[in-house]
């Protein structure tokens, strides 16, 4: 069974510090939903409010439409996977998995049967008698998932469960997690500071900053149509051009950047485009993969040139850094296969980008990296 989760105006304060502020979101039944944000932005706080380890200072948590106020974590239909997993080191793997059944008074044979079923689900059949410390990082990870699923929760809460794993394993576990979610069909609420994780696994993502939700949407919407400068720079890479508005035309804006004019989409806020005024300070965002070297085959509405600084090799991509003026660097990337031998250091390179790939947003704080 699965349930939806609704956060109504949740605020959590520690003293007069807001760890979460006015969080409003409805997470659908059976959805894989991620909270994405830098560390310290309040993700764990939100998860603890949902699981019941923490009472929000304001607002309500509804699970399956039921107000969870005053209901303890052991009575909620949720199950939490801790950032450090918190497996019980003195119990065997099977005992760990079946702990919630032991609590319910299920007899030993039945417990073992259920544990074995779950071990099969997480591809660890026959390893039930091992001690926790005999498992590898990825296996522990899966045991933690099995233990959390044994209680048959309606909502599974995951607190950066992959952060301790190395890159390859992390990528493998993403796929596995997603598959497990599909097969059990319950709501997963996943928190992470890793945008790759959030974008690949989730049905929807909520981007958080300093306790507030910046934007909620599907992965590609969040990536392609950021609504705030923070989202534009936290999710993926972006070049930020600080400009002034020259004129607006329907969904597009013409901006001035040090005398050069660019043409770009007007960014929107909750499906409604921002209302820009002439002379307003704005930021134009264009992603590294959307900037091209201008030649016969690549010619778009927006053109500028910059001095080549370095070319960085990143496996599948080459990142090319250029110096636009004393204050600003631009970065773009090309697939590794593209020949860059004709570019030479400190030489001006002519660049171009499409106005449909660039977004203009009102000025605001960027994500610092």
């Amino acid at each position: 069974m699965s349930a939806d989760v609704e956060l109504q105006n949740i605020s959590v304060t520690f003293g007069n510090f807001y760890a979460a502020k006015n969080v409003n979101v409805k997470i659908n039944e059976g959805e894989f939903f991620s909270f994405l944000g830098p560390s310290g932005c309040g993700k764990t706080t939100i998860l603890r409010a949902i699981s019941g380890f923490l009472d929000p200072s304001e607002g309500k948590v509804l699970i399956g439409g039921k107000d969870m106020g005053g209901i303890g974590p052991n009575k909620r239909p949720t199950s939490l996977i801790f950032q450090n997993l918190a497996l019980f080191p003195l119990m065997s793997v099977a005992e760990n998995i079946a702990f919630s059944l032991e609590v319910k008074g299920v007899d030993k044979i039945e417990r073992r049967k259920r544990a074995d079923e779950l071990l099969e689900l997480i591809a660890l059949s026959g390893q039930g008698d091992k001690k926790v410390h005999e498992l590898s990082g990825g296996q522990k990870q899966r045991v933690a998932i099995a233990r959390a699923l044994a209680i048959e929760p309606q909502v599974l809460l995951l607190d950066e469960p992959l952060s301790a794993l190395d890159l390859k394993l992390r990528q493998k576990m993403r796929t596995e997690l997603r598959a497990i979610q599909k097969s059990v069909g319950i709501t997963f609420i996943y928190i992470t500071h890793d945008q790759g994780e959030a974008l690949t696994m989730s049905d929807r993502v909520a981007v958080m900053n300093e306790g507030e939700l910046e934007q909620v949407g599907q992965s590609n919407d969040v990536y392609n149509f950021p609504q705030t400068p923070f989202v534009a720079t936290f999710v993926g890479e972006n070049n930020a051009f600080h400009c002034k508005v020259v004129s607006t035309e329907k969904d597009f804006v013409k901006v001035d950047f040090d005398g050069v004019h660019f043409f770009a989409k007007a960014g929107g806020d909750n499906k409604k485009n921002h209302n820009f005024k002439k002379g307003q300070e704005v930021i134009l965002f264009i992603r590294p993969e959307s900037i091209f070297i201008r030649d016969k085959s690549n010619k778009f509405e927006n053109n500028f040139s910059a001095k080549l600084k370095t070319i960085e090799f990143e496996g599948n991509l080459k990142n090319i850094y250029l110096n636009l003026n004393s204050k600003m660097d631009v970065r773009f990337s090309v697939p590794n296969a593209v020949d860059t031998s004709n570019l030479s250091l400190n030489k001006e390179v002519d660049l171009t980008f499409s106005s449909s790939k660039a977004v203009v947003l009102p000025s605001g704080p960027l994500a610092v990296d």
Partner: protein
Amino acid sequence: MLDLSFRPNLPPLLRGGPDDVHTLVHYKHFIFGSETSQDKFNYVDIGVFFNTIFTAILVTVINLCFCYPIAFYMAKVASPSTSRLLIISLIIPFWINELLRSFALRILFAGEGVINNVLLGTGLIDTGINFIAQDVALYTGLTYAYILLMIFPLYNAIESLDSNQLEAAKDLGSSTIRTHWRIVIPHAKAGIASGCTMVFMLTAGALATPVVLSSPNTYWFTQLIYQWFNMNDNWSRGSAYSILLLTISVTFVLLMMRIFKVKIGEIIR
């Protein structure tokens, strides 16, 4: 001392002489009593011995039951500043000498003592309770005397438990009692064993507290040892009795290790 316990009690002049042989006479005395006594066994000394052991075990158990919640509270519930305050208020009374502390308890528990006066004053009881004769004072005194040696190993052990495990257990539906039984106690067992052995050994070997607080007809085994050494000037017999106490203490430690399945290294840590 082990050697001394197997030698007869001789005046200094005869030591090293032909009479100074190894003998079990002192151990015999413990079991069968003096040759002049009518009884088959030395009921008095054996009685005192087992009473001491039994009481020491009881005191250890009371101590554990009393200290575990305090240690848990300090380690996992209280804020750091509260638990610091608690630790200090636990330690300060122990700056005072053990003998003085025992006398302080005696004043509290005496027939005309503070506790009786309060109980009588509030009308909870009609006649004063003789805490000393009931050995309540003794148990309390012994329990209190080594409380720190129980609390600190427990505190250290519980402190090192990852708090997320407590939350994980709760999240999986576990009740408080089960969480303690399945998670906290197994984690803290080395600390429990270490606290119990220390408290047991020191309680069984205590002298000042029993002297001050025991009822006139309760003897502590150490009091007997003391008598043999000092009043009767029989060092050999005193040694033999000490060895007996030492043996039982070591046995107890080994037993604790067996029960809790911990290694000696873990206890000392």
